[in-house]
């Protein structure tokens, strides 16, 4: 069958079961969009309003479905606009394939119109990338890209395809296998090493008195939720999760301590600081998780299991490092482990936990007109009974989401972790809704991040996506203001934000817009939004200067945290400032 390069792109997408593409057309990708015209019955193209949001939506789609997310853009500015989204997918190990048009091959290197060295620009923010100047290479490159993006530690792969390659034709047979000389999804370990490593790990776990499991996104990627559950039920070891590890274990499980790190609850961080063994599963000891490395878990030995060999020993030295798929490693490890309950250790952690409960912001009895961001998060949780997918933006509301939303469903929270990409929330909710059409999807964003992605309201309307949007409006760039408050002597440099009338904005887009200024109104509009059959934009006008606590200040040890005041001792205003 003779097909053009453009047709081969769509055929490959069909073969790879990639039926949703987020993109934006332009000159150098025109032949591919022309070919799409004949594939519209089989492939849904979502026309975003900015290419960055195509990449972010594709990333979220991948996280929501476990499949590869695909985005598309033209050469030059189209491709460079993808960069933030690719960097986001790279940091959070999300499988994304980006297809960009490039100027015709005879023009490459001539500074032709809309020419940019896209493989050069995206090299450090992709797992791999390709420049295709010869159509004979195209079918294999496309197949390889999907394989590289999805396998091992996933990540974004970009394919830059010259315009003439899209136009030329070759005899096409579907690629059913790829041969890659250099690529190993997982760095193989010496076979004879594995039994002794597993035995060493088991011996450490069986003899530990104060162990903690650090569970990261690798559990999700490796679909090891069941093995993790088996592990803790057998060994009684409590679990702390990373931000991206939220959703690897239901948060109502008594052994799930919930999120650790800079804004993790104090009892979680204390447990880690006092541990004698850390069992790190598919996580990478990010600085937001460890605090000051020199003082991190000083009495703990470390078992580090990760699919990426380069993560082991990068930030924290591991007594036992095992490279592999966490599901497989845990399956091999489980039979070697003894039953345990760790009663004393858990009792100690629970004492710390009681102290945290006493300091809960929600314990404070506040007047109705005093609306806090944590109220909003908790109200969404109560209204939905936790049965929804949440896409957050980045900042204070994101951290409050982790604290006040109890995640009971697998992979429920979609959030930008490593890169901390403001503007992620709205495009992520688009990717999430398309990936999980039957799910109730909430985008939660601050007034800052939301204003970065406002144009995507048009995408939501054009695609008729039933997304509920919650804007937590404190009229500040909240997290930056918090740092200015705590570290820069309240010098609020460029963090005050004027915001538009969001109700009128929603109306202009043909969307229902609601606003709440009080706790009563908050509950009303959440109910109203959920009852409405279509997208809704809810604005919650909250206290402007509230800080997220606890907080590990920069350079401090993980358990040296700025805490909330115990509510019983305060007037209820302390946390609000």
């Amino acid at each position: 069958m003779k097909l053009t390069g453009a047709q081969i792109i769509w055929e490959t997408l069909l073969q790879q079961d990639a039926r949703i593409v987020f993109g934006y057309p332009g000159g150098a990708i025109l032949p591919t969009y022309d070919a799409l015209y004949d594939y519209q019955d089989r492939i849904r193209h979502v026309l975003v309003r900015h290419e960055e949001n195509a990449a972010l939506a594709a990333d979220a789609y991948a996280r929501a479905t476990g499949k590869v997310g695909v985005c598309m853009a033209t050469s030059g500015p189209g491709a460079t606009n993808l960069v933030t989204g690719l960097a986001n997918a790279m940091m959070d190990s999300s499988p994304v394939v980006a297809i960009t048009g490039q100027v015709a091959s005879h023009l490459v290197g001539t500074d032709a119109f809309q020419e940019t060295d896209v493989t050069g620009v995206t090299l450090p923010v992709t797992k791999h990338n390709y420049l295709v100047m010869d159509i004979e290479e195209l079918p294999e490159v496309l197949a390889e890209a999907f394989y590289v993006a999805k396998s091992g530690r996933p990540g974004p792969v970009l394919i830059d395809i010259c315009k003439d390659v899209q136009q030329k034709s070759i005899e096409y047979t579907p690629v059913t296998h790829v041969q890659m000389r250099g690529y190993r999804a997982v760095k193989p370990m010496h076979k004879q090493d594995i039994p002794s490593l597993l035995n060493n790990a088991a011996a450490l776990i069986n003899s530990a008195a104060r162990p903690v499991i650090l569970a990261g996104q690798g559990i999700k990627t490796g679909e090891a939720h069941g093995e993790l559950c088996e592990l803790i039920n057998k060994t009684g070891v409590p679990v702390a999760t990373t931000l991206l590890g939220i959703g690897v274990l239901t948060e109502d499980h008594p052994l799930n301590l919930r999120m650790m790190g800079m804004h993790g609850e104090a009892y979680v961080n204390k447990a880690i600081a006092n541990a004698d063994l850390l069992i790190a599963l598919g996580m990478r000891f990010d600085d937001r998780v460890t605090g000051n490395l020199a003082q991190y878990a000083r009495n703990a030995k470390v078992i580090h299991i990760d699919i990426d060999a380069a993560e082991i020993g990068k930030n924290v030295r591991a007594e036992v490092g095992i490279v592999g798929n966490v599901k497989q490693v845990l399956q091999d490890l489980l039979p070697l482990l003894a039953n345990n309950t760790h009663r004393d250790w858990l009792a100690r952690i629970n004492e710390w936990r009681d102290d945290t409960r006493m300091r809960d912001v929600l314990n404070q009895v506040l007047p109705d007109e005093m609306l806090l961001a944590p109220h909003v998060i908790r109200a969404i949780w109560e209204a939905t009974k936790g049965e929804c997918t949440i896409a957050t933006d980045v900042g204070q509301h994101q951290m409050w989401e982790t604290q006040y939303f109890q995640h009971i469903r697998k992979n429920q929270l979609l959030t930008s972790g490593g890169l901390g990409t403001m503007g992620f929330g709205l495009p992520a909710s688009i990717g999430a809704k398309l990936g999980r059409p039957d799910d109730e999807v909430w985008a939660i964003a601050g007034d800052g991040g939301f204003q970065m992605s406002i144009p995507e309201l048009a995408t939501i309307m054009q695609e008729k996506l039933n997304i509920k949007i919650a804007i937590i409006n404190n009229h500040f760039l909240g997290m930056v203001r918090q740092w200015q408050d705590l570290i820069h002597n309240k010098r609020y440099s460029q963090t005050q934000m004027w915001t538009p009338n969001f109700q009128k904005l929603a109306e202009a887009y043909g969307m229902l817009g609601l606003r709440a200024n009080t706790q009563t109104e908050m509950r009303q509009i959440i109910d109203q939004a959920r009852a409405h059959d279509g997208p809704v934009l809810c604005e919650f006008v909250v206290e402007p200067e509230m800080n997220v606590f606890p907080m590990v200040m920069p350079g401090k040890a993980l358990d040296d945290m700025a805490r909330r005041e115990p509510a019983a001792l305060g007037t209820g205003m302390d946390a609000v400032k």
Partner: protein
Amino acid sequence: MLVDHAAARHNQQKHTLVALVENKPGVLNRVSSLFRRRNFNIDSLAVGTTDDPNVSRMTIVVDASRTNADLVERNLYKLVNVIDVQDVTHLPSVVRELALIKVHVANTVKRGEIKHVADMFQSRVVDVNKDSLIVEVAGEEEKVDSIFNVLEEYGIMEVVRTGRIAMARGGARAAHEQDEIVFSGNGQPH
């Protein structure tokens, strides 16, 4: 980035990595971009062709007191175009560097002396001019350093060094099995 200080103290400061890479456009860019991105300190990087036209060979010297050579190896391995990486520091191996040193020749007496120095280092004079000559020296870096030091008193005009190249002794060669990935109907590799 953790530096393995214990290893750096007890073992050699300089680690030699040999990488076999696919001979494709941009591969050197990928390797050097990795070093920059990870803040790896590299002493030298030598690249050349091999007996296989599809494969190039890189010899990379890492200063282990500043950079964890193990992490360099593992990160290199992750690059899709890198076929194999081997740390040959502790393997019996042949290590060489080639240098061309252009030396100032003040008079014919000096010319004779320089020739004599070159002979003592079993190196060769490969270009002679009225007031300069070029010495070609090959060997381990220490030897190149030594002749450089000796020639310095005559006035060195220009130097080029290839950087270290290395090969493990014996029959073993850096080899690498090929993975074949087969796609099923739903496009998922297995």
